[in-house]
């Protein structure tokens, strides 16, 4: 073993914050349906405790063995609307509380999959599901919800999307004492993957095995430090973008390998199938763990300045190229995230006016996932929110990629006010929304945006 390899790996862990961002256990709950809601809730609780009882302890042990922090241990479940066929909204609230209790008792901080897949049509119980969401997201702590309203194959369900716009408002209002924090736990997707380990949009897809482990790799800090080191060692004048992309690839390879190693070891220790490694660079509000910082290192003074989209495209592509070869199976979202509130540099760019909603939207064309953790004025109407989501969904549908929207209309706040949720959910100024109130006639149509022409491949 080359001593330089050992020291460089140690440096990545100790000085460049290399970690494994999340190990997420996906659990199928379809076999938990009982004769009534009480029995169903009991079965949900029991299955999660049975499958994940020693999950956190196992992750911690493996983390110590390799000296790599496993930052988050989480659970995703089968989209709850499948389990709740025929249930009323109160029943959905009860299931959410059973999930919350199970999550607490097995020691995890977030559980995803309180979800529905309504890209083509909505069942009566899925409407009940939507009704339950303001209570679910205000009365539980750990449960996250997501809804898939569109796919490249089926188009976009605009009826469901309109409900989503209203739900975002209602959830924010139900949690107004926390500045609308509930909306930070609700994501609307197009082409939602069933094996994404990152919250709040993680679900355990119906196509998955009974129990699966998925891993989310380290954050952007490692890439940022690697680029800084490269520039210092080689000198700016000796570097070109292709050399920089190569450095990102090689760093991502190492980062992904760590995720692959931890995933394999945890899955072996728990005798659970290892699903995928998600290559996404997920920033946190911690200084030095920012995707926005990579933009600045690569040459734009503020995120949102011209060139930002090109930088993000190159970063996203290099991350995938480096990661694909490092893992047996790559999946989930696998790209760079740009969640405004969770990334201090992006939040600063909103504050100084260099990053606007429209530029953010264009950047989501070339990365995963979408308009993520964007605080908007609480006065923005539901139809405008729905229309913003519709634009984002259209990008995903036409471009055969996952897109998502996690918008937080902060009650009582206007553009420029500052909102903070603390911890991993971060803080940012409220982003202005231009042309609000001008899209109601469009949202009012309802129905579906038909499947795009390139979906007809059969």
């Amino acid at each position: 073993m080359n001593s330089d390899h050992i020291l460089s790996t140690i440096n990545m862990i100790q000085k460049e914050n290399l970690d494994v961002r999340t190990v997420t256990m996906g659990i199928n709950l379809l076999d938990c349906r009982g004769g009534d809601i009480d029995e169903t809730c009991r079965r949900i609780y029991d299955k999660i405790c049975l499958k994940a009882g020693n999950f956190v302890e196992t992750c911690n042990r493996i983390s110590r063995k390799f000296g790599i922090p496993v930052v988050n241990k989480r659970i995703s479940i089968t989209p709850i609307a499948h389990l709740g066929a025929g249930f009323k909204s109160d029943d959905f609230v009860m299931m959410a509380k059973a999930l919350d209790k199970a999550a607490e008792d097995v020691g995890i901080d977030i559980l995803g999959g309180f979800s529905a897949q309504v890209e083509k049509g909505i069942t009566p119980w899925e409407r009940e599901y939507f009704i339950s969401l303001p209570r679910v997201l205000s009365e539980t702590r750990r449960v996250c919800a997501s809804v898939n309203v569109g796919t490249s194959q089926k188009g976009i369900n605009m009826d469901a999307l309109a409900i989503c716009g209203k739900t975002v408002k209602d959830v924010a209002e139900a949690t107004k004492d926390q500045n609308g924090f509930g909306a930070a736990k609700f994501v609307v997707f197009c082409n939602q993957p069933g094996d994404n380990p990152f919250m709040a949009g993680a679900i355990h897809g119906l196509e998955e095995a009974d129990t699966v482990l998925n891993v989310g790799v380290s954050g952007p800090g490692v890439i940022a430090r690697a680029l800084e080191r490269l520039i210092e060692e080689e000198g700016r004048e000796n570097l070109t973008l292709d050399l920089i992309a190569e450095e990102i690839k090689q760093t991502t390879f190492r980062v992904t390998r760590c995720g692959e190693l931890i995933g394999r070891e945890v899955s072996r220790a728990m005798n659970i199938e290892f699903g995928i490694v998600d290559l996404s660079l997920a920033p946190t509000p911690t200084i030095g763990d920012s995707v926005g910082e990579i933009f600045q290192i690569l040459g734009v003074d503020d995120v949102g300045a011209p060139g930002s989209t090109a930088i993000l495209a190159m970063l996203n592509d290099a991350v995938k190229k480096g990661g694909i070869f490092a893992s047996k199976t790559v999946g989930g979202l696998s790209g760079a995230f740009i969640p405004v509130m969770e990334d201090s540099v992006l939040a600063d760019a909103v504050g100084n006016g260099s990053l606007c909603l429209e530029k953010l939207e264009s950047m989501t064309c070339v990365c995963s996932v979408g308009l993520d953790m964007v605080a908007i004025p609480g006065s923005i109407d539901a139809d405008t929110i729905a229309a913003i989501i519709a634009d984002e969904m259209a990008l995903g549908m036409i471009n055969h990629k996952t897109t998502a929207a996690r918008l937080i209309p902060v009650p009582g706040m206007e553009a420029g006010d500052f909102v903070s949720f603390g911890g991993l959910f971060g803080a940012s100024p409220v982003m202005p929304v231009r042309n609000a109130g001008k899209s109601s006639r469009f949202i009012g149509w309802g129905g579906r945006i038909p499947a795009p022409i390139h979906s007809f491949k059969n």
Partner: protein
Amino acid sequence: MKKQIVISVLSKDKPGIIADVANVIYELEGDLADMSQSVLNGFFSMIILANFDISISSEKISRKLNDLSSGPDLTCIVRETGDSPFQIREEEESDVYVVTAQGKNRTGLVAAMGSFCRDRNINIIGYVTKLSGDIYSMMLDIVLPEDLSPDSVHDELAAVAGKLGLAIVMQHKSLFKTVNEISLR
């Protein structure tokens, strides 16, 4: 009938040492089974395991090696291992941890780490050091005895790290192979 001989060679580094030593073994019809060689700051060191016919004495091998044209800079030690002839042993990767200790350079650091391992019956199977500026790095491949848990060693290393003013981490060796090599098993 064969016997196993271990040969240690120390010399100022120059081209031809391996050829000279290997030819002596060949002329004595020895079978060179395994060897490890490195150069440290201009000094060549090599350890060889070879199987010889039982009639060849270690004194004879030693004489031949010391007659080498390499001159007075070369020192050889030849010993019979007493073991049966060499058989390749699979490296027990699953048991090997790497301890990395880094800190300001001063005397006594290797002795301290060595003593730590000796006192706990921890076997050091590889030890590499590197001086970069005034930062001294030590990388030890270690195998823990069966009655010692990795967790307890972690805790004890943390205490030693504080006492010596070093940053010490212990990680399973497979991490470094996984991160730095293409193959993944």
